[in-house]
C-alpha cells in the first residue's frame, strides 16, 4: 500500500578514527514522520549528511525511490553561522533559496511564494528585520521557511527545536505536521526530546553506538529509552 521514498541498505560510516554508523538498514515510507533519536555523537547528523549525499557511506548505499530526481530534499541544518550583525532581512534570507540563472531580482510569483511562507511561519510581522537581530525561534522558522521554499517532498530537521521555548517548539512542529498531513510531506526529525517525538511522529529510529532500533513510535517505551541509554 505505502510506497518507500528513501531506502538505507546496510549503511556504515567510518571516520578515520572511529565508526559511527554500522550496518544500518531502514526504509522510509512516503508521508511518514520519522523521529531519529540517540545520544550526542552517535551519528545522527552524519547519517543525515549521507542522505544529503554530502558524505558517501563507507559501506552500503542510500537510495531514493522511485529515483533520485523524484525526491527534492529540504534540510534545516543543526548549525548555521548567523552572527548578530548579519544584515539580510528575514524575507531576503528566505528568498536566497531561489537560486538559478534568472533575473537578479525575484519575479512576482517568487515574491508571492516568499510571502506565503512568511504567513505560514507567522513571520510576516518581522519579515523586514535583519535576521541577525531575530530571536532564536524566529531564526529557526526562517531556516524552515527557506528549506520549504522550493516545495521539497522530504524535509529533514536536525535538532531544529533544541533552542526553542515550549510554545515556539509547538508552533514550529504544528506547521511541519500540517504540511505532513495536508501535502504528504515526508519528515525526518532529529531530536533529543522524546515527548516531542512521541507527540508528532509516527515512526522512530533509535541509534545507539554500534546498533539501532526502529519501529512505530508507540513501541518506543520509557523502559526502552532508559535501557538503551544505559547499555
Amino acid at each position, binding site marked *: 500500500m505505502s510506497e518507500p521514498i528513501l531506502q538505507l541498505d546496510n549503511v556504515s560510516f567510518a571516520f578515520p578514527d572511529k565508526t559511527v554508523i554500522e550496518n544500518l538498514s531502514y526504509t522510509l515510507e512516503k508521508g511518514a514522520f520519522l523521529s531519529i533519536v540517540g545520544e550526542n555523537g552517535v551519528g545522527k547528523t552524519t547519517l543525515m549528511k549521507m542522505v*544529503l*549525499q*554530502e558524505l558517501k557511506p563507507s559501506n552500503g548505499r542510500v537510495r531514493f525511490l522511485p529515483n533520485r530526481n523524484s525526491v527534492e530534499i529540504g*534540510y534545516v*541544518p543543526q*548549525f*548555521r*553561522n548567523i552572527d548578530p*550583525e548579519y*544584515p*539580510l*532581512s528575514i*524575507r*531576503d*534570507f528566505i528568498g*536566497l*533559496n*531561489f*537560486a*538559478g*540563472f*534568472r533575473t*537578479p*531580482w525575484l519575479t512576482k510569483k517568487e515574491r508571492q511564494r516568499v510571502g506565503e511562507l512568511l504567513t505560514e511561519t507567522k513571520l510576516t510581522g518581522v519579515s*523586514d*528585520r*535583519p535576521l541577525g537581530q531575530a530571536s532564536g525561534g524566529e531564526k529557526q522558522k526562517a*531556516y524552515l521557511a*527557506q528549506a520549504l521554499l522550493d516545495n521539497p517532498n522530504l524535509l529533514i530537521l536536525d535538532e531544529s527545536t533544541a533552542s526553542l521555548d515550549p510554545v515556539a517548539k509547538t508552533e514550529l512542529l504544528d506547521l511541519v505536521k500540517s504540511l505532513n498531513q495536508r501535502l504528504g510531506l515526508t519528515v525526518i526529525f532529529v531530536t533529543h526530546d522524546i515527548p516531542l517525538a512521541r507527540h508528532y511522529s509516527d515512526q522512530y529510529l533509535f541509534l545507539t553506538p554500534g546498533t539501532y532500533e526502529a519501529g512505530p513510535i508507540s513501541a518506543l517505551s520509557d523502559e526502552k529509552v532508559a535501557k538503551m541509554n544505559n547499555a
Partner: protein
Amino acid sequence: MLSYPFMQNAYMAGTLIAIISGIMGVFVIARNMSFLTHTLSEIGFAGAAFGIFMGWQPLNGMLLFTTISSIGVGELGAKSSRRENAISAVSALAIGLGILFLSLADTNASYATGILFGSVIGISRANVIQMMALSAGVLLTLVVIYRFLKFDSFDPIGARVEGLWTRTLSVIFLILLAFSVSVAAQIVGSLLIFILLTLPAAAAKYFVHTVGKMAGLAVIFALVGVWTGLYLSYVTNWPVSFFIAAIEAGIYFIALAVDWAKN
C-alpha cells in the same frame, strides 16, 4: 575643472571604480574577504611594478598577477586558518617583489608612489576605455551568477545543502575580485583599494537589509567619496587617496554611530 581632459578621465574612471567596488564590496564583506582583498591589492602592486619593468601598462601587469594569485587562493580552498597564514606570506613576498621590480625598472620615485597611493593625472583615455571593458565584464558576470553568488555568500551552509556549485562559484568570484582590484587601483592606488572595496559596503549594511539595496547604497557611498575626493584633490593639490580614505572612513564611523544610537 572638467574642461581638462585629465580630470574628465579621472571622473570617468572614478565613477566606474565606485560602481564596481560598491557592488563587489557587498560580497567581499559577506564572504569575509577583506583581508584577502588587501593582499590582492599588494599583489597588484607587485604586478604593476612588474609591468613597468617589462615596459607594459601597469594595469596589465596587475591583471596578470592578481588573476593568477586569485586562482591560487581558490585552490588553497577551505582550510581557513592555513589560508590566512599562506596569504600573509604571499603578501610579504608580493611587496618585496614590487620593490625589486621598481628598482630594476629604474623609474623615478613618483611613479612608484603613483602606483602605491594612486594619482589623478596618470589616467589616459585609453586607460579609461580598458577600464570600461573590464568593468562591463565584471558587471555582466555578476548579473549572470547573481542569484547563486548571493545564496553562497549570505548563506554558505544553505547553499551547500542545496547542492550549489560552490567551488566553481568561489573561483569565479575571486577572478572578479582580481579584476576589480586592478581597476580600482588606478585611482586610489594599491595600498588603499581595500578602502573602496570594503568600507562602503560595510557601512551600507547598517542601513538597508537586502542585497540589492546594500549594493545600491554602497555604490552611492563610494561615489560620494570618489567624486568629492577628486574635486578636493583638484582644488587643494593634496593626494586624492587621502580624501577618499577620509570620506569613506567618515561614512563608516557615522554608520557605526547611527547603529549604536538605534540599539
